[in-house]
């Protein structure tokens, strides 16, 4: 029986982290070199953790399925990173960032974690500047800021529209230094396909070498998963093509509870799909909402171009409905409102599947040059994809799956319910509740990797001094290797088959988007619960995988991932069905206010829903971690 103990430290919220840092066990510098740690994933969380652990003296093995650590999908984050520096003199503070984040998450995050996140946010900016991250600067040489959705202060630091790239390169370069020093061993093109446990503790991983197809095991004192989110369960999302749930899902099957899988952030500003061959959706940074005004024609039958539509014939729906936040309402609110106007038939573009994001006012006010400086690369990207010039024609945007707030359940130390197994960044569930504020993902990834795990991992490792990692000849490893090898080879040994793996992924995505997307209801979710297992069965029977398992085989890589998405999707839907309230990104049609806003049910649902795996043929068991709000007052979120 799993008991959820979040291990939240004693004391007032502003002292909890300091108290905890004092109370956790330490590993002395000379002993750190006696420990091996495996880090899976080289995005912001993984690369920063690996580099920091190596600097402390631990021996680190890092695994990525990319050719280089620098390819991890953190690289694509555009807008910025929040920090409570209060450089703008506009009333920001650690407490305000904490408060905004809990509120923005619709009161479904753990207070203590979020406060710690806000505390270390200031250190992240210092760290990154010291590494040479070229943040935007004012003419005097000091750091510039921009504002972002869900906040009324300017606390977002940025590097043009490539903040994720620059932060990741900073972490990657720190990692490269650690590789050079010999404290980190890098395994690239390595697909982690299972987590190995013995006596309930994490002992290592099983990896498929994507060049040779060989499956082998790696052993360590602790395993850290920084493997990102599950957004590609929708097929179309802003995630990179290879982003997947596999490592987290395999950990779940080995005993790690999966928390809040129904929470998905649908980002409001993406380029609408143009045809059926669309392979992914492209995000346009939320920062564009600082200067872009969102509107649709008032007339549903409008056929004129944007420029021909007079001001009073335009419906600036966010500005009208939410005068105080306007176009800067949080992402979930912006997305649902876009869906509403498009569902009403007011959509724009050839498929009437978007809303306008218009920069005419900003260009008139600040000049084209100023707008180019702020968003040049984003405008360029839009022009390439959509074939329209946003300096003269408003962008067309529509919401798309972007980020997943749910993930592996972790305690305050970022340890999952499997001792010795940690989850960082988007792979865990801990800080964003039911909705993440813009510019907070980069903050959390780096907080976890640079400033949280390096402190908390010692608490687990210290008592293990003198223990050698479990031999990879142990049956726990050899059995896991054999299972992974068999599982992988079964796909290519099947003869016949009807469709490729892409087809099944697309079909799965349609079901999940239709019934568990921007809005959900009981009937739809029930329907998804019957359709997903049927699709999974057909997929497992009929999927066609060509080529050999011994060597590079991109179909084979993908089929394992889609297989895991097929199982994961069912849990996601089950979680959405059980959570009969609306909160953040999870909008249950049965639970809304008279004005159509999300209506929480704090009495019955102020908890983290963490699911326990019971085997492939059994439904998961729900465990609840009650959320206590001592500092942030639970209110109906209002951005009016």
């Amino acid at each position, binding site marked *: 029986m799993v008991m959820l103990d979040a291990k939240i430290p004693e004391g007032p919220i502003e002292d909890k982290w300091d108290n905890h840092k004092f109370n956790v066990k330490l590993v002395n510098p000379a002993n750190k070199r006696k420990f091996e740690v495996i880090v899976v994933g080289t995005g912001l969380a993984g690369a920063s953790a690996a580099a920091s652990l190596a600097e402390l003296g631990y021996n680190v093995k890092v695994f990525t399925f990319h050719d280089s650590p620098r390819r991890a999908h953190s690289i694509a984050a555009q807008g910025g990173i929040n920090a409570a520096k209060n450089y703008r003199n506009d009333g920001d503070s650690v407490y305000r960032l904490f408060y905004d984040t809990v509120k923005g998450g619709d009161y479904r995050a753990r207070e203590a974690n979020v406060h710690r996140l806000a505390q270390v946010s200031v250190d992240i900016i210092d760290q990154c500047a010291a590494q040479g991250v070229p943040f935007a600067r004012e003419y005097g040489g000091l750091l510039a800021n921009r504002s972002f959705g869900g906040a009324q202060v300017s606390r977002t630091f940025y590097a043009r529209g490539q903040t994720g790239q620059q932060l990741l390169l900073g972490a990657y370069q720190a990692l490269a*230094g650690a590789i050079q020093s010999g404290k980190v061993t890098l395994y690239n093109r390595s697909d982690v396909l299972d987590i190995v446990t013995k006596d309930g503790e994490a002992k290592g991983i099983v990896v498929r070498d994507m060049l040779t197809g060989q499956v082998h095991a790696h052993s360590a004192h602790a395993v850290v998963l920084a493997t990102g989110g599950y957004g590609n369960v929708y097929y179309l999302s802003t995630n990179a*093509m290879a982003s997947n749930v596999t490592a987290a899902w395999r950990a779940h099957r080995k005993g790690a509870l999966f928390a809040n899988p129904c929470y998905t952030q649908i980002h409001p500003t993406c380029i609408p799909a143009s045809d059926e061959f669309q392979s992914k959706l492209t995000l346009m940074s939320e920062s564009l909402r600082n200067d872009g005004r969102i509107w649709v024609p008032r007339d549903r039958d409008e056929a004129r171009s944007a420029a021909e539509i007079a001001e009073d014939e335009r419906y600036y729906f966010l500005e009208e409905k939410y005068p105080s936040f306007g176009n800067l309402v949080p992402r979930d609110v912006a997305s649902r409102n876009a869906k509403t106007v498009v569902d009403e038939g007011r959509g724009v573009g050839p498929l009437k599947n978007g809303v306008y994001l218009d920069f005419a006012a900003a260009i008139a006010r600040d000049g084209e040059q100023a707008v180019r400086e702020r968003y040049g690369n984003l405008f360029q990207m839009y022009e390439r994809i959509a074939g329209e010039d946003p300096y003269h024609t408003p962008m067309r945007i529509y919401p798309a799956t972007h980020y997943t707030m749910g993930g592996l359940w972790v305690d305050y130390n970022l340890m999952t319910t499997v001792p010795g197994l940690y989850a960082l960044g988007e792979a865990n569930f801990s800080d964003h509740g039911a909705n993440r504020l813009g510019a907070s993902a980069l903050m959390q990834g780096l907080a976890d990797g640079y400033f949280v795990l390096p402190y908390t991992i010692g608490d687990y490792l210290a008592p293990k001094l003198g223990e050698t990692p479990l031999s990879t000849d142990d049956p726990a490893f050899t059995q896991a290797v054999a299972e992974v090898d068999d599982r992988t080879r079964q796909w290519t040994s099947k003869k016949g088959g009807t469709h*490729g793996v892409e087809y099944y992924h697309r079909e799965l995505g349609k079901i999940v988007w239709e019934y568990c997307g921007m809005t959900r209801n009981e009937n739809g979710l029930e329907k998804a619960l019957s359709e997903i297992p049927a699709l999974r069965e057909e997929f497992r029977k009929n999927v066609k995988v060509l080529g050999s398992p011994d060597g*590079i085989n991109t179909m084979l890589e993908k089929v394992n991932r889609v297989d895991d998405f097929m199982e994961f999707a069912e849990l996601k839907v089950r979680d959405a069905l059980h959570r009969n309230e609306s909160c953040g990104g999870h909008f249950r049609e049965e639970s809304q206010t008279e004005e159509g806003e999300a209506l929480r049910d704090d009495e019955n649902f102020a908890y983290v829903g963490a699911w326990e795996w019971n085997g492939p043929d059994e439904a998961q068991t729900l465990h609840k971690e009650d959320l206590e709000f001592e500092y942030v007052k639970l209110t109906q979120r209002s951005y009016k």
Partner: protein
Amino acid sequence: MSKNLNLKLKIWRQAGPHAQGSFLEVDAHDIPEDASFLEMLDVVNERLIADDVEPVTFGHDCREGICGTCGVMINGQAHGPEKATATCQLHMRKFNDGDEIVIEPWQATSFPILKDLMVDRRAFDRIVEAGGYISAPTGTAPDANEIPIPKEVADTSMDAAACIGCGACVAACPNSAGQLFTSAKLHHLNTLPQGQPERWKRTEAMVETMEDFFGSCTNHGECAEACPKEISLDFIAFMNRDYVKSKVKNRSLVSKH
């Protein structure tokens, strides 16, 4: 409304690093002009799979032009005909109905072909590992505003840091030189005040590691033409200047101790 294209493709196929390669000729019909180049390859692959032919392997991931994973030679041009555009951001509306398109992998000894259009670019990682970083162990940093950086400096540093490490510069170069990539990283770090303490050591180490892998620069400028992020050729000049200086500076440090 968008129209469809019918294309004649010649795609390089090679089973492994040492295997004999050859062109696969494919008639790609009904390709929507709004599709990206890689989506066009996706369509081709789905059709190959339907015919029980193994799909063409190519590197790709973010499809937003930022991860640097993708990149092929399109009619002899790295990343194809559109300026400042990675392969994944190239759209089929840039082609005409009836076009023949030859698709090949990057060709450089330091980027061995792994399979079909996928190459191994680890040599770039080796160059960064040689010194492409500022040593700032976690937790040691002063307040970020302690060291002002003039906006012009931050901007030029950012211009260089925009490199996505795709390798098009090497692929486009008749000498397979790695100068543009290496100089971009050096310029990013060497212009910043934070980058000064390790500047000379970094420059020498990165340049010499580059030379272990790549050919020599003879100022053709093809690299900057092909670069999807418009990395400037000027950075190579700055690198050369710093490299010469580093040989003196690093020597004088040795003699002092």
